[in-house]
């Protein structure tokens, strides 16, 4: 006997087809199928479709997903000192700049004379006492004048004084010449006045040197800062480009690997 409540009943049909739901209801539907050709045909057709669905399989592919935790790295107080992140040329440039600034500030002086090699800092130079001023030989004058501008000026002033004193000494030995000299030139400078003039020149030269040093330090600081900013910009740009290239390379490697796997799977 056909139970009409089962005909066209999707709920019961699906439960029966997938063997899910109330067992008694499914048994009743099975009995109904024995007498209902329409429902039996429906079930048979659905089963054929399900058989066809089993033939659809996704292509084989390589799946190797993993969750990987990256080690946490907190930026420290001196994170900017992480030199290994900088390229070698940047480290070398920074080191050269630091050494140059240090030499400039300290006024490093390397000298070779009769006492051998002498290395000293600018602030270790002492102003010579007036009594220590001694005549310099020609070679010493040349090397000393090359050290600093004020030394050249001092040497020139010394030569000038000597040239003025020489006729005075000569006049002291020959009264005729001395008379002529007194008549045609300025009176000779005393020792006190001479040393005062020398001290004045030294003070002026030191003032100029300090001013020049301050200007140079300011310039070096400005150059250093500019260079640092430029280097940082280049480093950041370089890192960005490197990351981009690495990402592209990884993507290419993955595609290549997948291709190789597919090809190898096709081999008999």
């Amino acid at each position, binding site marked *: 006997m056909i139970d009409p409540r089962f005909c066209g009943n999707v709920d019961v049909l699906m439960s029966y087809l997938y063997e899910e739901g109330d067992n008694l209801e499914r048994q009743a539907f099975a009995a109904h199928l024995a007498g209902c050709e329409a429902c039996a045909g429906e079930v*048979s057709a659905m089963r054929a479709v399900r058989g066809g669905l089993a033939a659809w399989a996704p292509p084989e592919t390589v799946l190797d997903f993993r969750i990987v935790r990256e080690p946490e790295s907190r930026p420290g107080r001196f994170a900017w000192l992480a030199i290994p992140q900088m390229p070698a040329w940047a480290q070398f440039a920074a080191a050269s700049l630091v050494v140059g600034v240090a030499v400039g500030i300290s006024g490093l002086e390397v000298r070779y004379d009769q006492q051998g090699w002498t290395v000293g800092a600018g602030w270790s130079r002492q102003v010579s006492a007036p009594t220590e001023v001694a005549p310099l030989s020609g070679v010493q004058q040349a090397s000393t004048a090359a050290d600093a501008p004020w030394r050249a000026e001092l040497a020139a002033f010394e030569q000038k004084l000597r040239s003025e004193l020489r006729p005075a000494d000569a006049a002291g030995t020959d009264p005729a010449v001395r008379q002529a000299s007194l008549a045609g030139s300025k009176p000779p400078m005393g020792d006190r006045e001479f040393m005062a003039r020398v001290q004045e020149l030294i003070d002026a030269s030191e003032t100029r040197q300090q001013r020049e040093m301050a200007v140079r330090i300011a310039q070096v600081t400005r150059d250093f800062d500019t260079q640092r900013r430029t280097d940082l910009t280049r480093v950041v740009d370089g890192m960005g480009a490197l990351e981009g290239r690495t990402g592209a390379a990884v993507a290419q490697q993955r595609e290549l690997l997948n291709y190789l796997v597919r090809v190898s799977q096709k081999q008999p």
Partner: protein
Amino acid sequence: MTATDEELVARSVAGDTDSFNQLILRWERPIYALAYRQIGREDEARDVCQEAFLRAFRALPGFKGQAKFSSWLYRITLNLCRDWMRRQRRAPFVQVPEGVDVSDLAAAAAGPSESIEDVIGRKDLGRHVAKAMQTLPDEQRSTILLKEYHGLTFQEIAELQGCPLSTVKTRLYQGLTVLRRQLERSGVVTATPAGGRP
């Protein structure tokens, strides 16, 4: 002894990344298959699969175990597939290879008992099924996929899709009916005469 999904989830929530990697190893094939059958593109399906696990890992602390882990993962995957199709503004595209590659067929043989003719017939049927599936609405297609290929119960699908159980059965019936017509039209499934025994 193999740990259950629930045990691995608990360890993962506690911070054990290896446990979550075991879950990935266990579920990556089904998730990839679901994504591929849903959107029909191999590369994009792999990306969706990867993104699904990543989202699941991030959202793991919020997973309270109301549903099975696999159902939760299926829902994430289907949402991603829906987003992808919406972004692409296109229907699922199934890559159907042209022609027959003998070496491909040989590799596709299920076993030594399956002849090359069987393999050709199976692959041909698979192509027709794939084409017919892309004509289905998204809800019907995902219902069929979850029921046929992943063995979810009606109740699980109803919870996953957020609809009544009867709606799930209706969607399944309507989808199978459309597929039946398409496959009969293609000639790969013969129309069953009325009165055929189940």
